């Protein structure tokens, strides 16, 4: 398990996007470099394709995933994972999140309460296919409030 370190702009972009989609869930990909820590350098928002229940679920289209991998290759970045919001709900993964989780990806979950950012957390699968939490920092080394 590695720590996630955001540039201030990358974190700002994630938060701004997820405030804008409230009360629906918003989603996107984030990119960077993996060394001793996972450095988050760039984020790209994508459309939540879940039209039945967008307040409670998200889905990313196949073509948006194709473009995400292409973007990483073209920009010499690693595709680090997926972010999404939990509107008016804690920043902890659900059974639904676990069911679709992939190994080696990080999953950033942002709690947006009444339209404002309440918490940001990151999760990754361990060898037993269970979520473990990764610490999240901004470059200035301030740990982001998780709960």
């Amino acid at each position, binding site marked *: 398990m590695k720590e996630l370190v955001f540039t201030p702009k990358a974190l700002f972009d994630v938060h701004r996007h997820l405030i804008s989609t409230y009360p629906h*869930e918003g989603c996107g990909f984030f990119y960077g470099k993996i060394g001793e820590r996972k450095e988050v350098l760039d984020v790209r928002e994508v459309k939540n394709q879940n039209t039945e229940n967008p307040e409670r679920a998200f889905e990313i289209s196949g073509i948006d*995933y194709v473009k995400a991998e292409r973007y990483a290759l073209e920009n010499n970045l690693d595709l680090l994972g997926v972010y999404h919001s*939990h*509107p008016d709900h804690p920043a902890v993964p659900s059974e*639904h999140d676990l069911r679709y989780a992939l190994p080696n990806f990080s999953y950033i979950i942002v709690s947006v309460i009444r339209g404002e950012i309440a918490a940001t957390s990151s999760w990754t699968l361990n060898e037993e296919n269970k979520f473990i939490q990764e610490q999240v920092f901004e470059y200035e080394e301030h740990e982001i409030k998780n709960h």
Partner: protein
Amino acid sequence: MARVIIPTPLRKFTNDQASFETNSSTVFEAIKAIAVAFPEIQKHLFDENDQIRNFIRIYLGDEDINVLDKEQTALSPNDELSIIPAIAGGKD
């Protein structure tokens, strides 16, 4: 040769190789060739009946192979295939 983009979460099974070049003539053969070259990826791509797993989708360029000839879609040199895992979730 056609090129297959390996999705990032599965690259730990391909020695971090991001793409795979193949002379295979169909989509199914190309995906099978990856599993032959990297046996650890087999169970992530194929089910116990040796069919491509339900939650894996394949794109040829920008098109889902399900709107083409599915797994039997023919490949040409310079084609680019992408393996797409399902990405979804939410608070319940």
